[in-house]
């Protein structure tokens, strides 16, 4: 049974961790992109959106070089005593964070952009510091955006394949996630196992999207109630 559950567990762990990291990293980026008028805003927005258009193999290829023994980041991690990141679970998390970045940042940026600036001014006249305003006004009002961002990031990470293959390879229990496992089964003509995992993915993805749409619908109708 481990042959099924190990990749499933690994995939969920990867997607969960990636989502948490991205909510922490992506929120300030999205906030800045939604509010700033600086000229660097457009180039930065383009960089954030790059993973949407680039083939995952391109991304994986450059990450492999960057994190590898001759890469800048690779040399740094070795000096810090962390070892090399390619073909490890940690390397996979870093790759997923970059690969799924637009799926966190864009929904959040949209949600932040619709918040009326005046509400923040009002909060400041009611003695709320910038940090206080963010937590008491921005986050509650952007709740649908946070929900969309989390679900999309989680689901998108579960579906990644190309990047994983390039930087993670196929190490059971370490980097062999669902999509890779399915590919493996098909290559070895183990169609029954491939069917189980694939059908599971279809059902899971469908359930996630239905939940997202109905939750978002309820949140929005809750706001106009």
């Amino acid at each position, binding site marked *: 049974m481990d042959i099924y559950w190990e990749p499933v567990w690994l995939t969920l762990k990867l997607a969960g961790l990636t989502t948490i990291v991205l909510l922490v990293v992506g929120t300030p980026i999205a906030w800045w992109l939604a509010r700033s008028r600086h000229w660097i805003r457009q180039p930065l927005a383009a960089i954030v959106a790059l993973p949407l258009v680039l083939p995952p193999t391109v991304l994986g290829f450059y990450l492999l070089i960057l994190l590898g023994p001759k890469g800048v980041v690779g040399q740094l991690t070795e000096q810090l005593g962390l070892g090399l990141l390619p073909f490890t679970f940690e390397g996979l998390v870093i790759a997923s964070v970059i690969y799924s970045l637009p799926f966190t940042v864009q929904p959040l940026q949209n949600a932040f952009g619709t918040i009326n600036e005046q509400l923040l001014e*009002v909060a*400041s006249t*009611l*003695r709320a510091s910038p940090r206080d305003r963010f937590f008491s006004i921005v986050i509650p009002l952007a709740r649908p955006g946070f929900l969309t961002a989390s679900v999309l990031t989680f689901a998108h990470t579960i579906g990644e394949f190309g990047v994983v293959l390039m930087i993670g390879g196929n190490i059971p229990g370490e980097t062999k996630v669902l999509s890779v496992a399915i590919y493996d089964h098909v290559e070895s003509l183990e169609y029954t196992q491939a069917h189980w995992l694939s059908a599971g993915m279809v059902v899971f993805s469908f359930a996630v999207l239905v939940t997202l749409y109905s939750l978002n619908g309820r949140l929005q109708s809750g706001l106009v109630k």
Partner: protein
Amino acid sequence: MPITGIQARFTCHVGTFTLDVDLNLPGSGLTALFGHSGCGKTTLLRCMAGLQASQGVMRVNGDEWQNENGADASTSRPVHQRPLAYVFQETSLFPHLSVKRNLMYGYRRIPQQERRISFDQAVEWLGLSQMLDRMPENLSGGERQRVAIARALLTSPRLLLMDEPLSALDQTSKREILPYLEALRDNLAIPILYVSHSTAEVARLADHIVMLDSGKVVAEGPLQAIMARTDQPFGLEEDAGVILDATLSEHDHQWHLFRADFAGGHFWLRADSGLTTGQDVRLQVLARDISLARSQQTDQSIQNVLPAVVDEVASEVAPGTSIVRLLAGSTPFLSRLTSRAVHTLEIAPGQPVWMQVKSVAIVD
């Protein structure tokens, strides 16, 4: 430097617009910032609050909020560290919080020992007890603005800034809120700065007035003195006129009239409901409603005719139009006449005339 009062000196640029003011305002009562849209009155209010970046000085009753004197170490407190309250023009309630939690938002951010207005007190003043559990979208425009005012007061501010709080409301809601504003003016010990472009609102609420035009102060002083000046930039407008305080001294039941005494004479007013003998009222007499006669006319319909002395004549303030300033006792009045009438009647300073007042309005 005076310990009481508001010192506000600002220079600030917004696009092509420049605000440049240097004001010393009373440290209590309601001061109106008055002028056309685009004159800079909202910008001035935003500079005071710190919502708009500016060069300048802001001191409120001895407490320094901003001091940027070039060479000196510049200090400017951010908005959330200024003990002020701000009531915005449009509805500004937090949509995700109930009325009660909106009210609590500022209140719970004030240290307990600095709270001078209790939650129950604010709820009672603004009549909100029935709506505490409702969400902002279920309130009328007038109700929302009352919640916003209560929310502002609950921060126990040292200065209350109001940016045209009535302008987004319909006539019914305006009438609903004005009594609350009057009560605040009379009961709060803190100064209120009130931005408005409505002469009616200013006439009714203000003690002191600042008139702005193109980012500069064109007139400033006690309301009644400013409204009685012939050179005020708004003297040509339809609703230019003087404000005076009077006391209702006598009720004429037969003709349904009240006698209103003021320093220098009395008027007869129609006895509207809600008025009682002994009551203090604020009256407005528009310049266009006063005509002049060299002798007392008795065969005409106007009942309020008073002797007065011409104090000043501003000829040709606009083509064909002149403004005459009169004194009835010590009370000044303005009369808007055609320049031909001024010429024909030979109206000049020092001359006694009869003032025929066609209409007197109670504004308060």
